[in-house]
């Protein structure tokens, strides 16, 4: 953990270069160990760690035309590689196949008013899935993104039981052709990662980007801790609500128009 201590050292010019080297800020630094022996570091710029300074969240506009949610679901499938799992005889099973995000239609029985909205992991500040996990696999990053560390997930599915949003899935069938940025495997639990691999690179989650490309801002993504961010402004401007706010789990996903 030398890098961490290095970060706290104040930056005299010498330290600064040393630090960039250690952190791999130089794309291909060549370090001479002894005459004739060199060690080339192949790393690109190091980013992170995630800190509590940020709180990633989303704002979903349930008044948007409902077709956009299908687009968001398809974008998620394409990015993360779920949605085409099948068993040995090539069959999909709608009841058990993973669903990282889904379109939900609601109707007020009294007035007949209808709405349609996407539901996925709500990235709670007090996530029940983390509380019940016996191995520590279900976890919350410092910046509020709730993940499964599949390396230590034993597939017990307590987290799926605990989640008030049914946002997590269990992988029942062998998986193939996974994306390098999203290793998936049978016997573990998975769910929306808020596209952590993209967010860490400064990009938007795949669903948000796909909607933006289609000219829709029905899902906004950003830092809820930054009062100047678009999402914080929108959350302070519109009447928004969080699903089952009464539970006190403090979701990071806000909705308007429901």
């Amino acid at each position, binding site marked *: 953990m030398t890098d961490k201590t290095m970060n706290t050292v104040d930056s005299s010019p010498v330290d600064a270069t040393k630090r960039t080297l250690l952190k791999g800020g130089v794309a291909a630094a060549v370090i001479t160990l002894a005459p004739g022996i060199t060690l*080339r570091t192949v790393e690109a710029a*190091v980013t*992170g760690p*995630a800190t509590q300074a940020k709180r990633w969240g989303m704002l979903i506009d349930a008044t948007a035309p409902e077709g956009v949610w299908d687009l968001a679901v398809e974008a998620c499938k394409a990015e993360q590689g779920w949605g085409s799992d099948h068993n040995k005889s090539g069959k999909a099973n709608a009841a058990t196949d993973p669903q990282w995000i889904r379109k939900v239609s609601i109707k007020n029985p009294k007035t007949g008013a209808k709405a349609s909205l996407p539901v996925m992991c709500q990235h709670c500040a007090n996530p029940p899935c983390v509380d019940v996990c016996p191995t520590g696999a279900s976890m919350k990053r410092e910046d509020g993104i709730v993940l499964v560390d599949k390396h230590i997930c034993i597939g017990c599915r307590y987290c799926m039981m605990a989640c008030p949003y049914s946002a997590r899935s269990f992988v029942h069938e062998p998986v*193939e052709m996974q994306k390098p940025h999203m290793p998936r495997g049978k016997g*573990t639990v998975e769910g929306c990662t808020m596209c952590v*691999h993209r967010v860490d690179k400064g990009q938007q989650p795949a669903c948000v980007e796909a909607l933006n490309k289609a000219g829709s801002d029905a899902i906004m993504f950003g830092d809820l801790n930054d009062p100047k961010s678009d999402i914080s402004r929108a959350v302070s401007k519109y009447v928004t609500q969080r699903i089952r706010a009464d539970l006190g789990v403090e979701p990071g996903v806000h909705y308007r128009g429901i």
Partner: protein
Amino acid sequence: MRSASRILSLTILGFAIVIMGLGSGLSAAPAQAGEVPLPNPAKAFKGEQCVEPIDVMRRDHFEFLKHQRDETLREGIRGKKYSLNACIDCHAVTSPDIAGGKLRTLKPFCAECHSYAAVSIDCFECHSGAVQPGIGSEIGKQSALPPNHEQLKADKALITLLKGHLDPTSPQGGTGQ
């Protein structure tokens, strides 16, 4: 929780070593030449050097991987040099006896040593870039893939091949990585 399970597995490992020691009549003699051939891992597909000197890599690669795994996933630190995807990029090669040379694989590299050392790792079931055509930072240049591998990706026959390759009961006998 985690450290407890680690202690447990270490204890089990300890027992296993004792049992093995008894089984072999406690002979400390080095393996006879010719008995079990020393592993001969495939040459890296890419790069002139590894991320650390070779003797360090031979001894400590799994520590590096585990450390980086936790840093990436749990702390959100990315871009450090012990990335499993990077190992795959440099070390995955094609081999005519695996999927007819159509898929790159780590079998001639990681598994070469691991079968010698009786190590069994289970990474590539999820990190399957190691057994796919044309994925990686240098798509297309990776190993001896056919130039049209992008189309092949959707090719059913290739997927069947891959399945056979991954299935431990198939004649090709699992990836063994």
